[in-house]
């Protein structure tokens, strides 16, 4: 039962990452590889702010703002210097490693004792998390149905259409990448909240989990409408977490989980050449 609750909790947390990957890879046509660093940044900023005596809501807002800022920088570098998004985001990922260590000031920062008083009850914590996740999902869905959101969705696939209706595709790319990084940082902060600590390697492999779950979710839900596109995120991550949960129960070491995730992702991409093309073009 506890494992199932943990899977639901992780699904709620990591759905943010998968949705963020939809923003960059699908809507913006901007394959942002800085996900792992931004995820750690969110966790570290949150933990540090809690450690410094901030409240949970303001620490979450601080983590979200840090992510937003990194997204702006990543997109700005790519747009302004005309650097390939892959390269721009890898550069940011590298910079974030040092940046995260500087913020943290040590290898890891436990915040369990601080959080225990606020979230002594796991069910209470889950209720808040699920409410926030569902609320965020709904806000995102409604936003992308509006005129502005509809135009944002066409950024990657139809920049010529945007230009023809007098909109700047580069600005729209910046908005999407910033939103994406903001969500990833929130996800990292929630994970730090769940685990009660943050460290620089917390985000390692997050992008692969996000991409794998996105492919799984899209295989099940499809991509024909915004609704199913956004539903693919929680569905994909839930299935991913269930598979990982089963793997754990079969005795697979946690050390090997990321190896397994990587191999599954390679297999999914190998089975679907269109997917490779869509993800990287």
């Amino acid at each position, binding site marked *: 039962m506890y494992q199932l609750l943990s899977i639901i909790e992780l699904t709620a947390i990591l759905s943010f990452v998968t949705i963020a990957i939809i923003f960059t890879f699908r809507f913006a046509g901007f394959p942002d590889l800085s996900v792992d660093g931004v995820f750690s940044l969110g966790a570290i900023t949150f933990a540090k702010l809690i450690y410094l005596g901030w409240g949970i809501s303001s620490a979450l807002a601080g983590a979200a703002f840090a992510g937003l800022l990194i997204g702006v920088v990543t997109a700005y570098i790519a747009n302004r210097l005309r650097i390939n998004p892959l390269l721009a985001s890898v550069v940011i990922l590298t910079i974030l490693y040092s940046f995260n260590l500087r913020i943290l000031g040590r290898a890891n920062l436990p915040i369990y004792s601080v959080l225990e008083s606020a979230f002594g009850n796991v069910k209470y914590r889950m209720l808040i998390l699920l409410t926030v996740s569902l609320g965020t999902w709904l806000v995102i869905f409604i936003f992308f149905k509006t*005129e502005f959101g509809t135009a944002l969705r066409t950024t990657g*696939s139809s920049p010529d259409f945007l230009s023809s209706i007098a909109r700047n595709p580069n600005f729209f790319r910046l908005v999407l990448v910033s939103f994406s990084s903001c969500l990833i940082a929130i996800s990292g902060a929630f994970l730090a909240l769940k685990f009660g600590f943050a460290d620089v390697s917390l985000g390692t492999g997050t992008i692969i989990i996000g991409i794998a779950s996105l492919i799984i979710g899209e295989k099940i839900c499809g991509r024909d409408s915004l609704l199913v596109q956004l539903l693919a995120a929680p569905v994909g991550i839930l299935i991913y977490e269930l598979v990982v949960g089963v793997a754990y129960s079969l005795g697979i070491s946690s050390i090997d989980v990321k190896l397994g995730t990587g191999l599954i992702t390679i297999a999914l991409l190998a089975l679907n050449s269109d997917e490779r093309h869509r993800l990287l073009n």
Partner: protein
Amino acid sequence: MKDIDCLISVFDLGIEFDQPGDKPVTIFKGVNFSLAPKELIALMGPNGCGKTTLLRIIAGELTQTSGKIFFVNQDVDGSLVHKRARFIGRVSQESYKSLASELTVEESLALANKRNSKLALNFPKLNDVLDIISKLSEKAADFIIQRKNLATRILSGGQRQLLAIIVAVLGQPKVLLLDEHLASLDEEIKIVADELVMSVVNNKNVSVLVASHDFKWVERMCTKVARFERGIVKINLLEKNGL
């Protein structure tokens, strides 16, 4: 001197393309003309003479090697494509390719209608746009009503081209740049497209610069003709009766 009555004025415009290990190729140079409100100027000449290149320079997609372009009395040097698009509605032979395939017809038109205003946090709605389209062409409005909920990718090439033309006339552009926009259309859709273009010219004072090989169409629709000839760099504007 620029003519402030003209929507677009082009002075001494020229463009060259670099060739690796060879001299640059001059596509045209010394081009001068003005486009007055409600004027339709046809660009005619053989393939490769620079008609599309001229339209792309005016739209901001290419930068000229020499000369100046003014929109009304504003020098548009360095102005990007999306900024010029507030002034210009543009249709090329393959414009349908640049429609957003994931959007519905309704969403595409609602966004296009916001060319000169801010995108809001409202849901895109067709009603206001439909009024505008039906005043321009009832047939175009019927075409839209029947297909409003379809994704643009489901439409045929000709239908998407007509949609691209409707997108170009929405949002109060001052000038239309049309590049062989009727080339792939059947007769029925051509009639609707002509109705839309003539409607914005007559009712909204829009001007048109159109590249075409169809002399009969040009004679029927346009007020002036600019002749392009391979290797000849000067464009002479002629009254169509003088051809």
